[in-house]
């Protein structure tokens, strides 16, 4: 018996999920060993890319009807897209899972709690930089007022899933507003490279210090940095959660904000944002007004490590000397690696950083379980994936675990705390790590 909602869901899959993309998959299974959820479930095909693609097709063809088990398979996907570089057939899995989430979102009313959370996040905080800034003020107040300590004590956060509580524990201390805004865009007179900085909503608020250091580093390397004022959240979280239309709305705002011939590059320092920003072109290719502008935007987009390498940071790092500081390792940002194919550049910078010995983390290319807001929505699976990630970290005993994305950064820090290793090691953003490497030396010299 097919219920009305099941029929609607089938129709929604037919309407939203591209059949041609589905038939690109020939089911060879080469993606399986790249999929974190397949591995974390002891090789459950239901939680593999091949299985999910088969389910999408089965939904379209009516070979399955919508039920909890089907929903669970799609919900469990991290969206890390590690299956894409592993796929010889070139299946566009990222597009397929996005389309699947649109198909589901259009039919299935989300649960109240999740709906409220999503509404607040997507329509409010992440859509509007000012609101985000307001939220941060609250966090700041919360941290400075001692309320943080108090709520931790009285267990206010026990009301939330345990993982959220752990995330709360690793929120960075927010810089004061004046300090935050001080360093913005000091045009250098001799600059030959002109860079527009995509600040990112989370990076510009919770990780303001990292953004300040990003600008300082770029200027130190001789670039002129501009921060276009009208920029918005990149829209990635919307896109990954079945609300692509809202993501595209933000995309257009950003394209307008950055539409200037004055910039050689548009740089971001968050892997998750970077991938979506570089895909504006794809999302707007059919839009007569924005297609060309979007292509120009995406072409100029670069991540901070690649730009550092281009601006000659490696050579500058090699000139520096420092005392031995232990092992540094790197946890890939999935989207920086799998979508933008950037993984050599950050490693090369870490290899050249003075004092540290770079060692590769086991399965560094595999997701840490953060995956946007996945660790909030699927805490159990996220925890399993993080636990297996931490096994490699414990084996390596690094002093620093460097990441390229705020989500990964917080997730790795949660992992470190959970293992009780916060005295021995620290998760840091690559910009903060490099800034410290240089700063330390300058102090000494």
């Amino acid at each position: 018996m097919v219920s009305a909602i099941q029929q609607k869901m089938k129709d929604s899959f037919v309407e939203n999920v591209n059949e041609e993309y589905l038939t690109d998959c020939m089911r060879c299974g080469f993606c399986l060993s790249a999929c974190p959820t397949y591995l974390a479930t002891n090789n459950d095909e239901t939680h593999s890319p091949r299985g999910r693609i088969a389910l999408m097709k089965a939904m379209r063809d009516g070979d399955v009807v919508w039920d909890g088990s089907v929903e669970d398979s799609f919900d469990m996907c991290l969206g890390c897209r590690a299956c894409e570089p592993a796929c010889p057939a070139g299946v566009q899995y990222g597009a397929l899972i996005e389309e699947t989430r649109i198909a589901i979102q259009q039919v299935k009313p989300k649960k109240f709690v999740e709906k409220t959370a999503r509404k607040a996040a997507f329509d409010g905080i992440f859509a509007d930089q000012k609101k985000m800034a307001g939220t941060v003020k609250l966090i700041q107040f919360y941290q400075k007022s001692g309320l943080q300590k108090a709520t931790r004590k009285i267990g206010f956060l026990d009301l939330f899933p345990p993982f959220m509580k752990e995330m709360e524990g690793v929120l960075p201390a927010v810089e004061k507003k004046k300090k935050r805004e001080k360093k913005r865009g000091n045009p250098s007179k001799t600059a030959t490279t002109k860079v527009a900085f995509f600040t990112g909503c989370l990076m510009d608020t919770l990780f303001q210090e990292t953004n300040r250091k990003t600008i300082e580093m770029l200027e130190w390397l001789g670039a002129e940095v501009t921060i276009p004022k009208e920029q918005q959240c990149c829209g990635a979280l919307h896109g990954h959660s079945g609300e692509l239309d809202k993501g595209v709305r933000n995309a257009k705002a950003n394209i307008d904000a950055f539409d200037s011939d004055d910039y050689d590059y548009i740089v971001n320092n968050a892997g998750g944002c970077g991938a979506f920003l570089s895909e504006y072109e794809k999302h707007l290719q059919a839009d007569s007004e924005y297609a060309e502008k979007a292509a120009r935007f995406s072409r100029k987009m670069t991540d901070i490590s690649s730009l550092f390498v281009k601006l000659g940071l490696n050579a500058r790092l090699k000139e520096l000397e420092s005392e031995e500081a232990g092992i540094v390792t790197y946890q890939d940002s999935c989207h920086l690696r799998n979508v933008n194919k950037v993984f050599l550049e950050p490693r090369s910078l870490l290899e050249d950083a003075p004092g540290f010995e770079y060692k590769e983390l086991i399965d560094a290319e595999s997701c840490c379980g953060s995956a946007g807001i996945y660790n909030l929505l699927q805490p159990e699976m996220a925890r399993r994936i993080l636990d297996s990630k931490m096994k490699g970290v414990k084996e390596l005993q690094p002093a620093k675990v460097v990441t390229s994305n705020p989500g990964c950064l917080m997730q790795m820090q949660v992992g470190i705390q959970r293992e009780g290793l916060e005295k021995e090691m620290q998760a840091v953003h690559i910009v903060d790590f490099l800034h410290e490497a240089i700063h330390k030396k300058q102090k000494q010299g």
Partner: protein
Amino acid sequence: MELEATKPFLSIVGEANTKHSQAQLLAYSYDATANFQAKPDLVLSPSSTEEIADIVKLCEKSQIPIISRGSGTNLAAGTVPTQGGVVILFNNMKKILELDEENLTVTVQPGVITQDLCLFVEKHGLFYPPDPSSMKISTIGGNVSENSGGLRGLKYGVTKDYVKAMTVVMPNGEIMKLGGKLAKDVAGYDLLSLMVGAEGTLGIITEITLKLIPLPAIKKTGIAYFNSLEDAAKTVSAIIANKIIPVTLEFMDKGTIHAVEDFMSIGLPRDAEAMLLMEQDGTEEQVARDIQTMIGIAEQQGATSAILATSEKQAEELKTGRRVALSALSRKRPTTILEDATVPRSQIATMVKAIQEIAAKYNVQINTFGHAGDGNLHPTCLTDARDKEEMERVEHALDEIFHTAIELGGTITGEHGVGEMKSPYLEWKLGTAGIDLMKHIKQAVDPLNIMNPGKVFAKETKKRLVVHSG
């Protein structure tokens, strides 16, 4: 399967090792074969030979089909549960049990991933040569049941050449041990060989002891490009005639080169009509000599370029390129139908030419790659299963390829197995007497036909083509 009927199975393996939701049954309804799909009734992950024996006894009692499944990379629909039933997984049986360095054997559970095993024994200076292209994800159990080949088959043979012993659960639930860590053993019929490549139709293999050999000191890889498929094929024959047995002698045609380059961007020349990948291992002196000789032969046969790979990294990239050829080709059209026709290696040039002519005759797109050195080609038909008219032409073309291979003294499948896909053609190769003997064996071992029913044996043999090619 009704909930009530699943209960006895649940009590054997436990709820956590049982899959029966709609999504789970769908996820185990296919393998890597185009156009075959059917849901099982239940999916079980037993943890021991004894649990498997209990499951088999239950299935025997109620005559429920049993399908053993590794990672589902089969290319002949061998693991598609086309008659429903219980799918047995080996994800709880993936331990390497023992490395015996005195007897040079390794004993494993069936769920061990082929590549993991290779890397494990190489750490101990030992070598397990069979390397099917799917080795990164395929399981040893699947390899043994399919008697898988691979890129190194030319010099080192295939899976059957390395199976020394096994434990099998027979269709009546009895546990049988075959073979041993012996160099010689002629006690009775070679039942071990019967089980290798039986595609799960005679029993369930639950433990395997494999032969290992010392890891060769070094290996080197050469690469040659050609302006014509025939020149490449002639090079293969000339190398063998020159008494060189390389580890690998792999072939890719132009379409395959393009597809691989699209995926990997490793600098393969898009104007080449064909390429050969030549690898030799052994002592430094012998490897250098053989590779130079092979490069010389390729040049004599008209190669536009024949060189040594510049680094181990490049050699690995080239081999990976060859391994992903099939999947990479599938980016060209919605449906990819792969064949596995094999001929005596002296006939490789004739076969390559025949495939080209057949493709032209039926106006279908066929790209060919494969293990040229052992005559095992993979003509791959790129098509669209939704186009009935085109599919008919594809079928005729494939029929004719099988026919031609047999005419040339070859076979319908060199390493992928018969499964359900090629079962209608099996009699072409074996003849009535051969099929009858196989049926008698099957009847004696599995009288209720519960072990992977519908595979290997066809309901009806396809009518043999009467073709006058040329």
